[in-house]
C-alpha cells in the first residue's frame, strides 16, 4: 500500500521545484502538475481498491519519523478517507485540465504553484490525525485560496478576497485557541487519543474543556460558511475566476468538511445538536436567499453554501443517532459531497465557458443542454443522480428516528434549490421569442370587469416575481444573439470534454448507487428508463435518423409493455393498459416529424417506461424513484415547447412539491409496500400521512387549488406532449389514489365518522366545475383543452372518492374513455395547429371542408366528452350519477351535473368556431392534417365507437378489477347493465339516439330544401360576419363574455392568488434575508464573532 506520505512529500517537493521547472519551458509546470494530480488520484484509487478487498484491516495509521502516534504526527487511511481523496483529487485533476485547456488559458507561474499547494493542503486535511497539524494544513489551504481568489486581477475579486481573508483569520484564531486549550486539558493533540479519553470525567475537572472543543468546532464551522455569517464566501464565489470558484467549492470546502467530520468525534451531544441546527439553518436559508439571486455565480455560491450546510447537518446528526443509523447517514453525506464536488465544479466551468463564448442561450447546443441538465439535476437531488439516493437514505434514517422536522427542512430547502437552479435552466433554454412568462392565457379584457376579476385575465401577473427573475437571470452575461456568428470558432470542444467527464462521473455514480439501492428489493428493472434515456441521448448526439429512432423506441416500449402487462392483473392491469398502450398509440403521431428533435424520443420513451415502472415497483423507494423520474421527464418534455420556459418551471416545482409531500407521507407510513401489494387491512395510518400522500396525487391530477401548473404546462408544451400529459400522465395521480385507497377510509376528524374520501370527493366535484368554467373563457384552443382535462380528472377523483364498487368502476371507466377522447381531441387539434400555425380560435374558422377527418374526430370526441348520448361519455355520466345517487351524495351530483352543462358550452365552441363559419383567407389552400396524426385518430375513433356500442367490453374487465375490493353492485344481461337505480344498454342508446337524430335531420332536409339557397363560402352574406381583421370582430371572439359578467366574483382565481401570495412571501422573505449581506467586510467579521458568541452561549446553556 502506497504511503500517504508520498502524496504530501512528493507533492510539496514538486510544488517547491515548480518555479525552476518554469525556466525549462512555460508549459512544463502545467504538465508536471497534471501528472502529479493524476498520481494523487491513482494512489487514492489504489487505496480504495485495496481497502474494499479487506475492510476489516483498515483504517491504517501511518506514522512519521518512526514514532508511534501520540509521539509523532500520524496520518490515517481508511475507506472513507480514500473515497473522499479519490473524489477530491479527481476533481482537482479535472480542474487542472480545465484550467490548462480553456481558451486563452493563463494558467502558469504562481497560479499553478498555489493550485498545487491547495490540493496538497486538502489531502493533508483529510489524512492527518493531529489537531495542530490539521491547523497547518488548514492554513496551507486557506492561504492558497486567499491568493487564488484574486488571481484574475479583477477589482471585485480583490474585495472578495480581502473579506475572505478577514473571515478566515478569525476562524483560525478560534481554532488555534481551542487547540492549545485542548492540549492543556488532555495533554495530547492526537485526535484518537482524545476520543478514547473519558471526556465527561475530564470535563468535571476542567470546566473549560467543552469550550476548547467548541472553539475548535467553531473555527472549522466558520470555514464551512454557516448562514448568516457567510457573506464573504459568497462574494468570493461570485467574484473570482469561475475555475477558481470551482476549486474553492469542490476541493477546498470538501477538505474542510472532512476535517470537520474528523473532529466531530469530540463533540458532546449538545454540541452536535447545535451543529445540526446550524447546518439545517444554513441549508434552508441559503436556498431561500438564493431564490432572489439573479447573478449566476452568486447563485451558485448560495447553492454551494447550502450543500455544505446539509452535509454539516449530517455530520452533527451522526453524533446523535444510533451507531448503525450514524453510519448509514454518514454514507449519504459522502455521496452528497461527491455529488456536490462534481456538479458544482461542472456548473462553474460551464458558466466560464459561457463567458468565454459569450453565449446567452443554449437552446441549440444539445451537448451543453445535457451537461447543464445533468449538473442541475444532480444538485437538486433529482433521480437518478447520486444526491437523490443520498437524500433518500438520509430521509429514511431520519424517519426512523422520528425527526420529521428535519425531513421537512431538507425537502423545503431542496425545493427552493430546485426552484432557482431550474429557473436558470429554463432561462438558458428559452427561445428568443419566449417571454419567459409563466403563461399567456388569452382572455379578452375588453369587457368591464371588477378589479377582483382581472386576476383571471392576468394570471400572467400571478407569479410575476418568479417570472421577472426568470427573465433576468442571465442579464449580466454579455448580451448577444443566440448564436454569435463567430461562436463556432470560439467553441472549444476539448474543454467541454473535461466538463463532460465530470457529468459522466455524476451519471455513472448515480446509476451505480441506484443499482445498489434497488438491488436490495429486486427492483433493478426500474433503472431501465435511465438506461434508455442515456442510450437515446447518445443516439441523438450521434444523429440517428428520427424515424429509425422512433421505431426502435416503439418496439422497445411494446416489448416492455408485453412483458409487464403479462404479470399484472386487476387495477394494475387497467392502469398498465392505460399508461402503456395509451401512450404507445399516441407516439405514432411523432412519425410526422421529419428531422431530428433532440432528446424528444428518449425522454418520451423514458417517461412511458417510468409510468410502467410505477406499476411494478414494490417498495417505497422504487415507487418514489419512478414517480420522480416521471415528474422530471415530463417537465423536461414540457420545456421543449417554444414558450414553455415558465410553464415547465412551474410544472416542475409543483410536481416536486407534490412528490416531496408524498414522500413525507410515505415515510410516516412504513407499511407502504404492503399497501402497494394490495393488503388492505393495514394499521391505522396518521391522518397527516394520508393528507400528504393525497396531496401528492392531487398535484399530479391538477385538482382545484393545486392546478396552477396545469394550464400553462398542457398549453405551452408541444402538441404531442400536451396530449400525452393530459391523457396519460395525469392518470398517475389517480393510480396513486387507487393503490393507497384504504388510507382514505380513515376519519377526517378525530371525532366524527366522516372519512377523508368525502373531502376528496368535494375537491373532485369542484375541480370539475372550475375546470369547465376556466375552459369556457379561453380563446386559446390549447388552454381550453387543458382546463377541460383538469375538469375531467375532477370527475374521476369524485367517482373514486365514493369508495363504492360502482364509483370505482366509474372512475376507471372515465379514465379510459378520457384517455381516448382527450388524446383524439389533442391530436386533431394538433393537426389543425400544425396547418394553421395559430392557437387562437378566432383566427380559425370554416375548416370543415379543409380538414374533414379532423372535424369528425373533434365532433366525435366532444360528443363523447360532453356526456350526451350515444357515445362513451354518456355511459360515464350515467354511471357517475347513478353511483353518486346510490351513495346519497346529491349535492355533489348537482355540482357535477352543472359542470357538465358548462362543459358542453365550451365544447360546442370547438366545433363552432374552428370548423364552422367563415374560412380565413390564409387557410384556403390548407390540406388535411398529416397522416401520422390521423392514424391514431382513426384508431381511437374505432375504439370509442366499439366501447359505445358494447360498453360491457370495457366495463366488464373494470368491474372484475374492482371486485376484489367491493362486492359487485351492477349486473349484466347481454349488453344491458343493471344498477340499483336503473339500466343502460349501449346498443339501445346508440340506436335510439341515431334514430332521434336521423328523423329530424331527414325532416329538415326534406322540409327546408326549398328555402335553402346555396351560396359560395366566401359570400359575405353568409352568417353576416366580417370575415377578416380585426379579429376582435370575429363572432367567436370573447364568445361567453356575458357569462363572465354574470358570474362575476365566482371567477376570482383564489388558488392563483394564494400561490402568488406564497411565492411573493417566499421571495420577499429571501429578499429581506439577504439584506444581512451588506458587503462590508467588517460587518461580516462582526457577524462571524456574533455567530460564534451565540453558539457558545447556547452551549453554555447546555451545561
Amino acid at each position, binding site marked *: 500500500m502506497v504511503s500517504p*506520505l508520498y502524496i504530501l512529500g512528493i507533492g510539496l517537493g514538486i510544488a517547491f521545484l515548480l518555479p525552476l521547472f518554469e*525556466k525549462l519551458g512555460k508549459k512544463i509546470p502545467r504538465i508536471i502538475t497534471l501528472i502529479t494530480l493524476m498520481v494523487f488520484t491513482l494512489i487514492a484509487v489504489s487505496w480504495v481498491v485495496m481497502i474494499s478487498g479487506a475492510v476489516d484491516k483498515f483504517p491504517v495509521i501511518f506514522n512519521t519519523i518512526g514514532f508511534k502516534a501520540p509521539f509523532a504526527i500520524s496520518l490515517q487511511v481508511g475507506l472513507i478517507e480514500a473515497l473522499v481523496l479519490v473524489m477530491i483529487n479527481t476533481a482537482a485533476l479535472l480542474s487542472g485540465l480545465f484550467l490548462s485547456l480553456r481558451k486563452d488559458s493563463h494558467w502558469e507561474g504562481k497560479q499553478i504553484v498555489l493550485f498545487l499547494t491547495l490540493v496538497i493542503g486538502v489531502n493533508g486535511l483529510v489524512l492527518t490525525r493531529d489537531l495542530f497539524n490539521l491547523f497547518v494544513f488548514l492554513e496551507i489551504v486557506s492561504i492558497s485560496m486567499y491568493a487564488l481568489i484574486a488571481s484574475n486581477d479583477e477589482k471585485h475579486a480583490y474585495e472578495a478576497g480581502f473579506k475572505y481573508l478577514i473571515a478566515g483569520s478569525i476562524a483560525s484564531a478560534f481554532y488555534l485557541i481551542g487547540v492549545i486549550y485542548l492540549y492543556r486539558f488532555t495533554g495530547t493533540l492526537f485526535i484518537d487519543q482524545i476520543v478514547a479519553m473519558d471526556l465527561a470525567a475530564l470535563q468535571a475537572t476542567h470546566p473549560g474543556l467543552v469550550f476548547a472543543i467548541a472553539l475548535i468546532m467553531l473555527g472549522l464551522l466558520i470555514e464551512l460558511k454557516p448562514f448568516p455569517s457567510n457573506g464573504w464566501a459568497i462574494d468570493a464565489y461570485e467574484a473570482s475566476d469561475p475555475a477558481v470558484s470551482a476549486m474553492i467549492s469542490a476541493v477546498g470546502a470538501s477538505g474542510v468538511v472532512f476535517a470537520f467530520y474528523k473532529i466531530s468525534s469530540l463533540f458532546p451531544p449538545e454540541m452536535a445538536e447545535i451543529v445540526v441546527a446550524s447546518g439545517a439553518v444554513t441549508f434552508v436559508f441559503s436556498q431561500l436567499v438564493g431564490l432572489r439571486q439573479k447573478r449566476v455565480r452568486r447563485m451558485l455560491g448560495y447553492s454551494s453554501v447550502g450543500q455544505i450546510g446539509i452535509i454539516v447537518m449530517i455530520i452533527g446528526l451522526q453524533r446523535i443517532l444510533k451507531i448503525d443509523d450514524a453510519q448509514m447517514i454518514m454514507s449519504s453525506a459522502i455521496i452528497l459531497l461527491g455529488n456536490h464536488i462534481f456538479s458544482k465544479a461542472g456548473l462553474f466551468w460551464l458558466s466560464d465557458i459561457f463567458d468565454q463564448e459569450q453565449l446567452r442561450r443554449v437552446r441549440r447546443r444539445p451537448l451543453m443542454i445535457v451537461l447543464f441538465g445533468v449538473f442541475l439535476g444532480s444538485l437538486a437531488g433529482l433521480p437518478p443522480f447520486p444526491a437523490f439516493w443520498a437524500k433518500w437514505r438520509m430521509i429514511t434514517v431520519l424517519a426512523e428516528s422520528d425527526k420529521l422536522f428535519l425531513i421537512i427542512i431538507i425537502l423545503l430547502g431542496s425545493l427552493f434549490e430546485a426552484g432557482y437552479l431550474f429557473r436558470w435552466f429554463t432561462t438558458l433554454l428559452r427561445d428568443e421569442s419566449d417571454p419567459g412568462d409563466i403563461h399567456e392565457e388569452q382572455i379578452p379584457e375588453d369587457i368591464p370587469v371588477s378589479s377582483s376579476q382581472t386576476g383571471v385575465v392576468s394570471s400572467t401577473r400571478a407569479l410575476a416575481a418568479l417570472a421577472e427573475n426568470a427573465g433576468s437571470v442571465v442579464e449580466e452575461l454579455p448580451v448577444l444573439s443566440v448564436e454569435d456568428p463567430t461562436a463556432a470558432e470560439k467553441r472549444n470542444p476539448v474543454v467541454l470534454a473535461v466538463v463532460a467527464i465530470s457529468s459522466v462521473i455524476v451519471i455513472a455514480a448515480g446509476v451505480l448507487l441506484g443499482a445498489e439501492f434497488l438491488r436490495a428489493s429486486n427492483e433493478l428493472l426500474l433503472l431501465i428508463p435511465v438506461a434508455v434515456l442515456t442510450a437515446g441521448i447518445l443516439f441523438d448526439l450521434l444523429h440517428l435518423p428520427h424515424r429509425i429512432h422512433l421505431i426502435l423506441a416503439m418496439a422497445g416500449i411494446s416489448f416492455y409493455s408485453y412483458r409487464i402487462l403479462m404479470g399484472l392483473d386487476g387495477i394494475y392491469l387497467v392502469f398498465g393498459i392505460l399508461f402503456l398502450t395509451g401512450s404507445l398509440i399516441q407516439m405514432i403521431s411523432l412519425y410526422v416529424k421529419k428531422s431530428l428533435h433532440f432528446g424528444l424520443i428518449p425522454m418520451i420513451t423514458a417517461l412511458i417506461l417510468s409510468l410502467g415502472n410505477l406499476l411494478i415497483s414494490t417498495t417505497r423507494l422504487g415507487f418514489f424513484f419512478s414517480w420522480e423520474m416521471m415528474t422530471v421527464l415530463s417537465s423536461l418534455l414540457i420545456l421543449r415547447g417554444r414558450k414553455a420556459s415558465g410553464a415547465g418551471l412551474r410544472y416542475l416545482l409543483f410536481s416536486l412539491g407534490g412528490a416531496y409531500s408524498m414522500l413525507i407521507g410515505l415515510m410516516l407510513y412504513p407499511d407502504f409496500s404492503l399497501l402497494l401489494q394490495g393488503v388492505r387491512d393495514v394499521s391505522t395510518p396518521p391522518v397527516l400521512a394520508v393528507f400528504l400522500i393525497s396531496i401528492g396525487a392531487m398535484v399530479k391530477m391538477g385538482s382545484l387549488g393545486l392546478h396552477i401548473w396545469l394550464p400553462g404546462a398542457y398549453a405551452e408544451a408541444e402538441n404531442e406532449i400536451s396530449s400525452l400529459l393530459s391523457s396519460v400522465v395525469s392518470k398517475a395521480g389517480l393510480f396513486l389514489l387507487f393503490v393507497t385507497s384504504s388510507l382514505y377510509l380513515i376519519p377526517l376528524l378525530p371525532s366524527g365518522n366522516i372519512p377523508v374520501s368525502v373531502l376528496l370527493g368535494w375537491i373532485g366535484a369542484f375541480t370539475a366545475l372550475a375546470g369547465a368554467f376556466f375552459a369556457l373563457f379561453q380563446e386559446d384552443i390549447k388552454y381550453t383543452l387543458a382546463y377541460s382535462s383538469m375538469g375531467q380528472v375532477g370527475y374521476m377523483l369524485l367517482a373514486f372518492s365514493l369508495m363504492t364498487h360502482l364509483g370505482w368502476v366509474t372512475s376507471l371507466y372515465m379514465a379510459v374513455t378520457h384517455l381516448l377522447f382527450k388524446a383524439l381531441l389533442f391530436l386533431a387539434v394538433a393537426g389543425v395547429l400544425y396547418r394553421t400555425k395559430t392557437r387562437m380560435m378566432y383566427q380559425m374558422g370554416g375548416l370543415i371542408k379543409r380538414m374533414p377527418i379532423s372535424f369528425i374526430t373533434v365532433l366525435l370526441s366532444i360528443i363523447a366528452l360532453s356526456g350526451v348520448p350515444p357515445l362513451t361519455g354518456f355511459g360515464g355520466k350515467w354511471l357517475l350519477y347513478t353511483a353518486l345517487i346510490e351513495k346519497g351524495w346529491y349535492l355533489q351530483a348537482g355540482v357535477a351535473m352543472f359542470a357538465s352543462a358548462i362543459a358542453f358550452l365550451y365544447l360546442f365552441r370547438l366545433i363552432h368556431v374552428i370548423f364552422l363559419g367563415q374560412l380565413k383567407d390564409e387557410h384556403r389552400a390548407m390540406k388535411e392534417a398529416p397522416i401520422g396524426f390521423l392514424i391514431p385518430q382513426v384508431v381511437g375513433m374505432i375504439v370509442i365507437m366499439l366501447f359505445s356500442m358494447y360498453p360491457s367490453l370495457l366495463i366488464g374487465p373494470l368491474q372484475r378489477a374492482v371486485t376484489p375490493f367491493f362486492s359487485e353492485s351492477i349486473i349484466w344481461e347481454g349488453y344491458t347493465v343493471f344498477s340499483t337505480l336503473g339500466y343502460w344498454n349501449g346498443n339501445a342508446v346508440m340506436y335510439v339516439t341515431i334514430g332521434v337524430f336521423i328523423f329530424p335531420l331527414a325532416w329538415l332536409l326534406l322540409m327546408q330544401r326549398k328555402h335553402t339557397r346555396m351560396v359560395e363560402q366566401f359570400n359575405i352574406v353568409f352568417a353576416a360576419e366580417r370575415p377578416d381583421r380585426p379579429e376582435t370582430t370575429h363572432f367567436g371572439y370573447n364568445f361567453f363574455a356575458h357569462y363572465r359578467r354574470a358570474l362575476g366574483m365566482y371567477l376570482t382565481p383564489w388558488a392563483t392568488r394564494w400561490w402568488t401570495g406564497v411565492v411573493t412571501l417566499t421571495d420577499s422573505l429571501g429578499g429581506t434575508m439577504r439584506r444581512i449581506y451588506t458587503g462590508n467586510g467588517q460587518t461580516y467579521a462582526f457577524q462571524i464573532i456574533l455567530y460564534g458568541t451565540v453558539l*457558545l452561549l447556547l452551549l453554555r446553556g447546555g451545561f
Partner: protein
Amino acid sequence: MIKRIIIIITLIGLSFVLLPLFLNMEDAERLSELSQTYVTEGAEELGTANLVTAVVVSYRGLDTLGEVAVLFAATAGVTLLLGTKKKGGSVTDLLEERRGGSELLNTGAALLFPVLLLFGAYIFVHGHLTPGGGFQGGVVIASAFVLLLFIESDREFSHSVLHSLEALSGAAYVLIGLIGLWFAAGFLDPRFLPSGEIGRLLSAGAIPLIYSLIGIKVGSELIGVVDSLRRRS
C-alpha cells in the same frame, strides 16, 4: 454609536462565555505525559540539546514541513497579487526619492551585510544546540537583504539565484524526509545520520542539515515577500 455598543456587548458576551478558559489557570506542576517523554527520551533518541528543536524538526516535523509550505504559498500569493503585469496603474518606485543613502550608511551596510549573513547561518546551524533555528536564522538572513534594500532601493536581486536557492533547498528538505522514510524509521526521520554526542555541532542526525535547509528556504522566501511588497506595480 449603537453599533459600537453592540460590538462591546458581543465582545463582553464572548469573554464571559470563555471565562472558564481564562480564569483559574494555574501554572502546571509537571509536564504532560507526552512532553515528559519528549524531555526524558528526546535527547537520547535524537541527540539534540535544544528539545524545542527536537519537537519542531522531528516529532512534529510534518508541521514544520507544512509551515514551510505555508510560507511558500504566501510568497507565491504575494507575488501573484502584486506581480508585475497588473492592471493597477503604474506607480514609480516608491523609494525613488530616497535613492542613494549617505556614504556612512552605505559603508555601514556593506560591513553589516556579511555579518548578518553569517549570524543567520550561525543561528540555523546551531538550531539543535541553542535557541533559534531555521526560521529565526532565515529571518536574519532576510533582514540583511532588507538592509540593502533600505539603502539602495533600486537594487535588483538576482531572482534566478533566489528562486533556485529556494526551490532546491525546499526539494532537498523533502528529499531528506523521503530518505528518512527509506533508510530510517519513517518520513522526516533524521536518524539516518549518526546522532553523535549531545552538544556537538555535528550531532543530532540530520537535524542541523534540515534546519539549515529550512533556514535557506525561509530566508529566500521572506526576501521574496519583502521584495514583492517593495517593488513598484
